[in-house]
């Protein structure tokens, strides 16, 4: 009996699945997607590189003057992330003191090419 009830209910409702890629599922705000680095506010402290659980973040030379806590700093390095290796655990975002490295809430292009580096 319970199966019949469910069957009739399903006849009256829309399918549970969506027609991807025409339709897209809504992505929540907290979604951990593709990693991104904001060059303007990164102070080059290397914390992200130290906490990365898969060691996909390396520090590359990128000298630049940065304003941090009302001081002008001379930054020497900035992070470069191998997207193919990144597991999007979010540890870098959690430990970044300025919010320069973060995970965008984007579903696609989150790292299928070995050569792609986010910097």
């Amino acid at each position: 009996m319970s199966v019949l009830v469910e069957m009739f209910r399903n006849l009256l409702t829309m399918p549970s699945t969506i027609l991807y890629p025409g339709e897209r599922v809504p992505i929540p705000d907290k979604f951990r997607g593709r990693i991104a680095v904001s060059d303007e506010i990164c102070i080059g402290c290397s914390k992200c590189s130290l906490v990365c659980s898969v060691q996909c973040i390396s520090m590359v030379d990128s000298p630049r003057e940065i304003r941090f806590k009302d001081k002008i700093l001379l930054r020497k390095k900035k992070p470069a992330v191998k997207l193919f290796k990144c597991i999007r655990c979010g540890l870098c975002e959690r430990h970044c003191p300025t919010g320069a490295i973060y995970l965008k809430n984007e579903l696609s292009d989150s790292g299928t090419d070995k050569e792609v580096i986010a910097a």
Partner: protein
Amino acid sequence: MPEVTVPIGPHHPALKEPVNFKVIADGEKIVRLELDLSYSHRGIEKAAEQRDFIRVLPLLERVCGICSHSHSTVFVKGIEEIMQVEIPPRAQYIRTIIAELERMHSHLLWLGVAAHEIGFNTLFMWTWRDRELVQDTLEEMSGNRVHYGMNEVGGVRCDLAPHQVSAALERLPFLEERIHQYTDMVNDQQTMLLRFKGVGKLSREEVLNYGAVGPTARASGVDYDVRRDDPYLAYADVPWNVVTDTNGDVYGRTCVRIGELHESVNIVRYCLENIPEGPVRINAPKIAPDGEIMSRYEAPRGELVHFIRTNGTNKVERIDIRTPTLANWTSVAMCLVNKNLADIPVIVAAIDPCLSCTSRITLINTPGGKPGIITFDELRKRRQISDKGRGLP
């Protein structure tokens, strides 16, 4: 009739994970079952010894794809106890909510798999459709459907926003209605009753002898649940009941899991409505003092144990993981004896096996029978020879 050995696995189209069964059968009846585990050893325990408490958590979450929160929670619970750190009540409640949502999605997944094993694919589709609601809630709260990454030593990584709490509360009545319908379905449907009742029966004494845990033990009348008997997180504050059954067969295990789904809905609702205000984490020390702990947790499949030893550094000296599937395997081998060959899938599925989580050792050169230690370089050389033999670069 002579006994026949039927080998199944380790690589077989019907198996989801690698395991080797050697079924010794007399006609259609199973005389004996020999099980070989550990075909997917990943060296997680050794890898965990080389990472600090921040970097080890994403690794431990990946012990299991279904109970990822269980593994990280049992670990941080142990480390916090060694450090003598008390986490804020709000963090306790958030961990409890995620844990119970995880239990709900695991049990709904299991119900679908069990239905699939008996050929009732309609129920498989329905449970997995409803499981998506739980997955969506988890994704909204944590940012990921499977590996939530909520835990850190000293609390949780992110807070729950009011709109997330209300969205989760809105979904619960629908889920509750669906779970009621599954309860009716399991009791009404002849398809399920015929394949579940009296199959894979285990008495209370057998369960205690073989050391089965979780829903497998509770279905045989063993009234034991770590959440009640050794309370952790917010379970001591929440009103809930341990679900037990006396049937002892696959039907009993199904009833226990569906009963636990009802309890989980109630626990999540209570926690969401009564979540205390305040911080979600404290600054925990980076280094743990010397210590040893046996940390226990009621994962969806049963009691999960992490043995942790620390040595005054920011890494663990030794971690040993005992997953519930390992505790339940002996009971499977025993309750298959004198059953029909056709009952193997449903009896094995009834413990909700997770084989890759269970793999802790790898046996190399078993025909030689000589125990010994193989170095990493030696392993690498063997791998190179094996790759060359297969024409790989």
